[in-house]
């Protein structure tokens, strides 16, 4: 592999090193982002190695390359590898495209690069960025993208300059044997590399570009029919089905789903029992392929509502006033002992599964208010009987084990574990069949307790194996999970032990606003639990998830302050950026328009009142000849402002004149000539062949003058004379100070007897 060295003039001319180092960093950043998003270390390691080799070569002003033929062969091999990978593994198109881009970049890194190759590398890197943006929405990727854009801006600027330099270096006239020597071209096009100017230009260009990015992000029209796939994934567990093992990490945002006020005896109060805090949305009773679903379709021709309640039971009813800021689905949350739900339109029906459904079309931004009335738990016999009578207690399956479908091996393992946990209770249930209900409840509670004790709560499921059943994975390998895992596992075990159980999903009331006396339900309050059926009690809520563990996991997934802080950022990211959808856009625009309207109204009001009073004052002045206070104020204000402006302009003019005067003086080198004349008077010999610098240095040696002010003086003079830089006021001040210091030193030197 040959190494080519460049002369200093070549480097100065082509600015190879200045372009290559940031370009290599950009390529590495692109590969890093994609590899981390995909969690594929192979591409990261290989790209790091390739970039590292090129970087070391660039640092030593060398370029490392192989024959172009080998590069082309490498590209062909990469193409074949990617085609094979795509056809065999069935990765998404963006993943495969990302792999292909990385491989091509690796090949091109070992090519002898020209301007065309740099353009290709830049374009490839941009495509890699887009691929990464399409496969991930991790918060780190947001910061990474900003860093990437900053660097890409710098590279693009340097590359634009380099192209011009290359053209100047390569152009050859018809009559010339070759291009000019690099040194000569370098002298023709630049004196030095303008790093500072490029950095400033980068800042100036980058800020508006980023602002434009934010504006487009805020204003770009989104799909109004549905939320984006990611926001759905990250915002809430609204899916009617529970699909275990699909998402690797669950993020629950702080978005408010509903506010809820419990009214008892005409006054707002807290939930009376734990069971009253569970707001049910869906009931799922069929388990297959790690997924919970409904056994029957949602029956909208359900039971009649409202129900007429006996007078004896009316006193015991508790009411909930629920406000949903945005409604996204027809199912409405309510406690499982709900008797009636009322809304303004009275368009709510109840299914046979006791799920409450809103009839009619749903508008995406519709807010919705409804009222529920329910019996607080524990239920009395009368209440249960009434609920049964009105059909609020659905019947349980006669053969619960049939509602669970596991593989044979998994079923035997899970059943074995469940039997080992409840061995004594099962035996007693067998012996005492008349107490089956009590033992069923005891079995369910035993299982829930064991799950709470032996298994831990987590939202991070990156270690979950999607190839085996989620319940089996949770019970025997993973041993940690979130509420859906706990509820699913308990329901599967109970059903296998012939305890009728189903999974319910909804919200758990936790956050209470003491000022407004209402519960605030957020997306992060989404929860899953189990309901166990006994003929005596109906469906009884048993939550196998540890409440404290869950709260701890949601509120503080890490126990350090920093992790909490990072979590907050993540929540914000998913809430404000990833979850920014049509609804957020609409609410933001409404907010902005209302603010603008308010401002406009206020301004208009103020202006009209001002004009009215002015008019009144003028009328008064014209008719009565009296001067009102407001006119006096106005005149005084105008006078003060005009005087201020006048003085400011005068000051500015004086300053400019002074600067000009000083600059002219400096230009004419009066100071330096005066100083030279003084030196000659003091005995400095005339040397017409010496330069100014040499003269002053010899004077410094002869009269023992301080070197620093002298050097500053000469440098500034040279900079002005040859660099064409106008001296600033600060420069002139410095020169004057230096001149005074030099005069003092010269006086001291001349007065000292030698």
């Amino acid at each position, binding site marked *: 592999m040959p190494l080519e060295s460049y002369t200093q003039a070549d480097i100065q001319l082509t600015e190879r090193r200045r372009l290559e180092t940031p370009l290599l960093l950009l390529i590495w950043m692109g590969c890093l982002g994609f590899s981390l998003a995909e969690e594929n270390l192979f591409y990261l390691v290989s790209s790091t190695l390739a970039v590292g080799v090129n970087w070391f070569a660039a640092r030593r002003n060398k370029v490392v390359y192989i024959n172009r033929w080998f590069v082309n062969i490498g590209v062909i091999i990469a193409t074949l590898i990617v085609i094979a990978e795509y056809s065999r593994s069935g990765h998404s198109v963006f993943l495969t495209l990302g792999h292909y881009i990385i491989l091509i970049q690796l090949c091109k890194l070992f090519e002898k690069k020209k301007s065309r190759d740099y*353009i290709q590398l830049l374009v490839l890197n941009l495509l890699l960025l887009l691929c990464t943006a399409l496969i991930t*929405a991790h918060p780190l990727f947001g910061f990474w*993208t900003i860093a990437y854009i900053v660097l890409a801006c710098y590279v693009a600027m340097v*590359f634009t300059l380099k192209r011009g330099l290359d053209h*100047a270096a390569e152009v050859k006239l018809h009559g010339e044997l070759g291009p000019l020597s690099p040194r000569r071209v370098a002298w023709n096009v630049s004196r030095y590399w303008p790093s500072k100017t490029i950095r400033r230009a980068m800042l100036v260009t980058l800020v508006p570009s980023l602002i*434009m*990015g934010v504006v487009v992000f805020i204003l*770009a*029209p989104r799909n109004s029919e549905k939320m984006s796939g990611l926001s759905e994934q990250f915002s809430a567990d609204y899916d009617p089905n529970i699909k275990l093992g699909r998402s690797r990490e669950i993020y629950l945002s702080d978005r408010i789903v509903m506010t809820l006020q419990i009214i008892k005896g005409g006054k707002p109060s807290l939930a009376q029992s734990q069971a009253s805090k569970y707001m049910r949305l869906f009931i799922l009773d069929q388990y297959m392929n790690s997924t919970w679903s409904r056994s029957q379709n949602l029956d909208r021709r359900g039971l009649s509502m409202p129900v007429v309640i006996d007078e004896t039971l009316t006193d015991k009813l508790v009411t909930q006033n629920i406000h949903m800021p945005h409604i996204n689905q027809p199912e409405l949350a309510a406690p499982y002992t709900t008797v009636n739900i009322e809304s303004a339109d009275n368009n709510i029906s109840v299914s046979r599964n006791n799920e409450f459904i809103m009839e009619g079309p749903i508008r995406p931004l519709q807010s919705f208010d409804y009222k529920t009335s329910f019996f607080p738990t524990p239920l009395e016999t009368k209440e249960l009987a009434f609920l049964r009578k009105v059909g609020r207690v659905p019947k349980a399956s006669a053969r619960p084990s049939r509602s669970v479908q596991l593989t044979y091996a998994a079923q035997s393992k899970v059943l074995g574990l469940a039997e080992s946990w409840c061995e004594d209770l099962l035996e007693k249930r067998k012996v005492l069949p008349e107490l089956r209900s009590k033992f069923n409840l005891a079995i369910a509670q035993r299982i829930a307790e064991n799950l709470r004790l032996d298994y831990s709560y987590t939202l991070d499921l990156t270690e979950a194996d999607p190839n085996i059943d989620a319940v089996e994975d949770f019970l025997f390998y993973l041993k940690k999970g979130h509420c859906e895992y706990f509820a699913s596992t308990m329901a599967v075990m109970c059903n296998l032990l012939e305890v009728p159980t189903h999974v319910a999903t909804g919200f758990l009331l936790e956050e209470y606003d003491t000022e407004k006396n209402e519960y605030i339900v957020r997306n992060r309050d989404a929860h899953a639990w189990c309901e166990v059926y006994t003929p005596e009690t109906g469906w009884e809520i048993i939550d196998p998830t540890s409440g404290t563990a869950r709260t701890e996991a949601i509120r503080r997934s890490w126990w350090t302050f920093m992790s909490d802080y990072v979590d907050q950022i993540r929540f914000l990211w998913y809430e404000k950026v990833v979850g920014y959808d049509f609804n957020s856009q609409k609410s933001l625009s409404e907010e902005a328009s209302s603010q603008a309207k308010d401002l406009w109204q206020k301004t208009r009001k103020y202006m009209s009142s001002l004009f009215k009073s002015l008019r009144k004052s003028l009328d008064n002045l014209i008719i009565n000849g009296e001067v009102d206070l407001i006119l006096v104020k106005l005149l005084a204000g105008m006078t003060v402002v005009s005087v201020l402006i006048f003085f400011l302009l005068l000051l500015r003019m004086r300053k400019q004149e002074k600067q000009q005067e000083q600059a002219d003086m400096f230009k004419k080198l009066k100071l330096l000539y005066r100083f030279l004349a003084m030196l000659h008077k003091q005995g400095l010999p005339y040397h017409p062949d010496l330069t100014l610098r040499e003269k002053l240095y010899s004077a410094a040696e002869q009269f023992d003058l301080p070197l620093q002010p002298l050097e500053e003086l000469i440098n500034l003079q040279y900079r002005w004379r040859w660099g*064409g830089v106008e001296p600033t006021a600060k420069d002139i001040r410095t020169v004057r100070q230096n001149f005074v210091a030099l005069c003092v030193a010269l006086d001291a030197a001349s007065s000292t007897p030698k």
Partner: protein
Amino acid sequence: MDRETVRKRRSRIHLRVPLAGWLFLVVSLLVGIAAFRSSMPLMFVILGVMWGAFLVSGIFARRMLSGVTVHRELPERAWQSDTLYFGYYLNNVRRSSCLGISLRELNPYGVEDACGYCMHLPGRGRFRSGSRLSAHRRGRVRLKDILLSTRFPFGLVASQRRVSQPITLVVWPAKGYINRDLLRRGATAATTAHPGRQQGGQDEFFGLREYRMGDNMRWIHWRRSAGRDKPIVREMAHPLPEVLFLILDVRRNSLDELVEAQRERLLRFAATLIDNTLGRGYQVGMALADEKGPCIISPSAGVGARCELLDILANVRDPRIGLETIIPAIPPRDLRDAQTILVCPDPGKMNQLQLARLASRCKNFTALGHKELGSIFVDNPHVAREGL
């Protein structure tokens, strides 16, 4: 230059989207489609940044050129097919720096130029950007406008500004190589009363004499003067100037390309000869026909004579008169002490009697035709390559 003058001189700035910019827009369009289809938030941000970069590129590039003035520093004369180095003086009246400015001559007919480039022009600063050009044909080349352009910062939009600076460049015929000394050395030499002031170093030693007022101090012979009352000076022999008189027949008998090429070659030979002989201290005179009639230049030496003679050669167009009119018009005094060279397409076809009379009036007479030129004159290789 004050701001008012700059504003007056400032011409309109045009924005142009190059290929890279169009490709960038197409890519941004695809990104937009992907963003709307996928609803990925970061895609919208990237899309916005891309649009922002495009807009900023245009605004930035436009602002950069708004405060730049340019002045072309070009010699008035150049040799055909030789590289002429010149400079563009750029001045930035704005406070902010300008980057990546390229300069190009607009519509330079008959001239090939290498674009000038200024990588960094500091705020309120100046820069001389070196450039070069090469003229393909002799004559007067009119350079009109300079095109200032920049693609900084991102190369997506190019802003351009025309600066009108008309200038005429006189292109002398290309210089070749004469491989035989055509001129006979004259035996005439005279001693001067005192050493020559200008050509002292080239003279030969003649003798010593006493110093007189007005003598050059450099020629005092200090060693000889050491024991005397008056200084002694060296006396040098100063050869009288040689005189060359060129008579050219530049009339075209037909519009044939070959004839035109032969005439151009003849002119190149004449230019080369004039340049060589003037460099050797000759006085050179010339007679040829121009559109108005015979053009006779009396022999003279120096830079002015060189420019005058070569300018006339550069401006030769299509005269209607030939040697039969020119030769009688030459004053006899110009030919008396001159070595005369007559250059015409074919001396054999000329009036021999007229030639004999001419020869009798000169010190030396040589007649050259195309055949003779073939063995004497080697053309400029770049001109020969172009087949002119």
